[in-house]
């Protein structure tokens, strides 16, 4: 295998790995957050506005790690910084 093939396969594998771990962890965490939010919503329906607002904001903050994983995977797949280097090395 030449350098481009190695770099490409490693990039694709790492992107999938990164996205799978990031998505499952963020999904689990958001599930816990929504579950406890709904519990407190059922206990205090009067505070629905404030509870759901806080829940949405904390969901967004929890989701940030998943979004980071997505951005890193996209960089690996489409804007890999070592791609130009690999191509120029192979072309020599």
């Amino acid at each position: 295998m030449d350098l481009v093939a190695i770099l490409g396969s490693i990039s694709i594998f790492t992107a999938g790995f990164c996205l799978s771990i990031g998505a499952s962890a963020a999904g689990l965490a958001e599930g816990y957050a929504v579950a406890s939010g709904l519990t407190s919503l059922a206990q205090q329906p009067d505070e629905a506005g404030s509870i759901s607002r806080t829940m949405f904001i904390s969901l967004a903050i929890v989701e940030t790690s998943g979004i980071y994983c997505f951005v890193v995977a996209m960089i690996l797949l489409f804007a890999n910084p070592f791609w130009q280097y690999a191509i120029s090395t192979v072309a020599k």
Partner: protein
Amino acid sequence: MLEIYDQQIAFVLPYVNFPVNWTIASTWIVMAVLLLVSFLATRNLKTGDKVSHWQTAMEVMVKLIYGQIDEMTKGGKAMTYLPFIGTLFLFILTCNLMTLIPEFKSPTASLSTTGALAIMVLIGIPFFGIKNAGMKKYLKKYIEPSPAMLPFNVLSELTSTGAMAVRLFGNVLSGVIIGSICLMLVPFILPLPMQVLGLFTGMIQAYIFAMLALMYVSSVHDDEDEPPAVQNKKQALETLEK
């Protein structure tokens, strides 16, 4: 395949020979839409029983945003934040909702736009902090538990606003990319629910960006202006401790 709107040239400005990429071009389109709608709506404002439909819609929108800000901030200072937060919310909302239009390239799917919005929030933190509580109290926030925490406080300010930028960018970009992947695989039915989900996500992201900006911007405030309920609670706690 990655939609990098910063590198796609829309047109070249005549005379100055300045290439305008799609991010700037679609930002101008969104600005034009917002300006046109607000101009049409506020053309002849009236008080009384008979007002135009436009004015009613605008009043509902402004009142909704005002109410949300009023619930989050203390001491009836919502009017201070309303122009900044409302503009952020309406701009991001329009950008996200206009992704439904075919061939429209949403500016929020580019890191430059969201980075610019986050920098605005970063500037807004000292601006509103000094305006509300004075220079001394604002600077005191950075050495709050102890002066040793100064670098961490500064760092948390930078990273939290940076995270806002990446969050908005990642959410909108993921919607765009998933849409185009679905279009490649199952072009007939499957993109539709994804687009509907994208509408929902865009709405939520605009709301969350505005609310987080409000949280960071209003983090420094005068304690004297607490609403009476909080003061009563504090007094009750103090008497309990005695």
